[in-house]
């Protein structure tokens, strides 16, 4: 147990250091940018309606007079006190904006993540078993085609077919236009999330299925599968008892590694469907040089990705008897 705690602790420290690195890199990139946020936003409503102190604090952060190191340390100090600064475009604390936007995206992201994970695993295992035969070729062809398709174009295509031609789904936004916020039903939300979630799932499945297939083929070529066959286990038993069990470990890693890709995809998909989530906020912040918000979004999404990796590592340790029992013995 002590061993596991140590392992988790080490991973947490590494994760914190990586996050620190992400924030430094992002900060440096922003400092290097010739697009000055204050210049871009001067005269805009956002800046005009701010109090003088707010503007002053902004200048302390982003003004060119203060050295970068000092600005970064100022930002970091505030973050440790739970303040990520104020968004220039939304005139709200960055954390509030991120919280709202994340809440909007969460349905979309989780649906796509679960769907692509489960379907990808099933497809990958099936195709690994039928290696070289027509189901394999069919699904491999699909995966190749999808991984070669830009996510945003797939989104446009689905929008064109299901919203414009068939009229089954709304054109955009996560809620109907002109309806008061509290009158929006869960059904409305669902209807608006279907196409974006579908786009993300279609893309996500391809990657997971392909990787699962590779792992499944490795497993099926292993000595223990050979011995299971030699001992008269049926093909179904070989696949279900040994194949699935052994492919499940890499599948955990794969599933959690896909978090980053799904978030990345959501940036594009939300833009096409005008879905007011975190991804769309990132694009708006980037285009409007809302650097505090962009920095906040980068750090938060990276934290989600790293947390995913950490969970994968911990689950792996719990699922693999070599680690679980090996640690228990020490």
């Amino acid at each position, binding site marked *: 147990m002590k061993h596991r705690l140590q392992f988790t602790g080490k991973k947490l420290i590494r994760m914190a250091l990586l996050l620190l690195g992400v924030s430094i890199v992002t900060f440096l990139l922003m400092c290097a940018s010739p697009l000055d946020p204050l210049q871009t936003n001067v005269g805009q409503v956002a800046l005009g309606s701010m109090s003088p102190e707010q503007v002053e604090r902004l200048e302390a952060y982003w003004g060119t007079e203060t050295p970068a190191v000092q600005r970064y340390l100022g930002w970091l100090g505030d973050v440790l006190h739970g303040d990520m600064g104020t968004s220039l475009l939304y005139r709200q604390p960055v954390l509030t904006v991120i919280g709202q936007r994340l809440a909007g995206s969460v349905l979309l992201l989780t649906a796509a993540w679960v769907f692509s994970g489960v379907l990808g695993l099933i497809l990958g295992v099936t195709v690994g078993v039928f290696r070289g035969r027509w189901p394999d070729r069919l699904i491999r062809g699909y995966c190749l085609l999808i991984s070669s398709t830009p996510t945003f174009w797939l989104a446009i295509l689905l929008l064109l077919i299901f919203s*414009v031609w068939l009229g089954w789904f709304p054109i955009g936004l996560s809620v109907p236009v002109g309806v008061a916020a509290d009158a929006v039903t869960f059904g409305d939300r669902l209807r608006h999330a279907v196409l974006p979630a579908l786009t993300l799932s279609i893309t996500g499945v391809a990657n997971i299925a392909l990787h699962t297939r590779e792992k499944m083929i490795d497993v099926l070529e292993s000595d223990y599968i050979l011995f299971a066959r030699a001992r008269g286990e049926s093909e179904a038993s070989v696949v279900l008892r040994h194949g699935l069990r052994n492919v499940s470990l890499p599948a955990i890693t794969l599933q959690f590694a896909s978090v980053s890709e799904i978030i990345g995809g959501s940036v594009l998909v939300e833009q096409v469907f005008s879905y007011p989530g975190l991804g769309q906020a990132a694009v708006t912040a980037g285009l409007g040089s809302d650097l505090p918000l962009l920095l906040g979004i980068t750090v938060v999404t990276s934290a989600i990705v790293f947390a995913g990796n950490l969970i994968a590592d911990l689950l792996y340790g719990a699922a693999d008897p070599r680690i679980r029992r090996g640690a228990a013995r020490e």
Partner: protein
Amino acid sequence: MKSYGNGTEYNGKGKNRRKSTILFLAAAVVILGAVTVSGIFLEGTATETDFSRTNLAPGAGGLFGTDWMGRDMFARTLAGLSLSIRIGIVTAAVSAVIALLAGTAAATLGRKADAVISWCIDLVMGIPHILLVMLISIACGRGFAGVVAGVALSHWPSLARVIRGEVIQLRQAPYILVAEKLGASKLQNVRRHMLPHLLPQFLTGLILLFPHAILHEASVTFLGFGLSSEQPAIGVILSESMQYLTTGRWWLALFPGLALVLAVVLFALLGERLRQLMDPSSVHE
């Protein structure tokens, strides 16, 4: 029973997939090359406006139709594709070189260098890819320089990991250790024993980066962080087409996207087939 004095006498019987692979590789290279070159020549045509022929559907308005300024969509698509392919090749090449340097450095310069580089790889992989490209592009002031820097500086980590693993394995390979004992210099060892093993890995890694690079260039341009709207880029074309979707001008989005998908599929197949050809473990397939 059949005679089987010599295994090679079965040559030519049945379907030989490897031969068709070589043919396919040649065809793919020719097609992609033709698209790239013709796109360069069509750049002028692509920006020509003709207000007597606006918003024509495919057929009347040429193969791919025309847009609201009467520009020929076929020429625009080819020019955009050509631009995408050229950017893709440059950025993938830069990324692959970074990967090669980082990977070998991590594997050869000791534990500290390895820890630092591995940490950097984890860091870059921790930021969602598209977000990172956006950030780098912003740092470079967007536009052509932004998108090229963004794609080139963000695609190296996974290949660097592969190369690091490969070099570590090679360094511990008995025949290399023996060569070192026999007095071969480090440089000699690298050139004579390591490069021949690394090169195929590196080349297929490079070609498999093309599709990613092209897709990310198009995506970032689509979002508005890449090429400017005057340039006939696929991302720009598709971004503009968004305004006309509801008015039924589907061809503005359909054909340019389809062309991009086809080009990327060709690149992906190219890399995949090449990998199979060079991978000794695929002899049975």
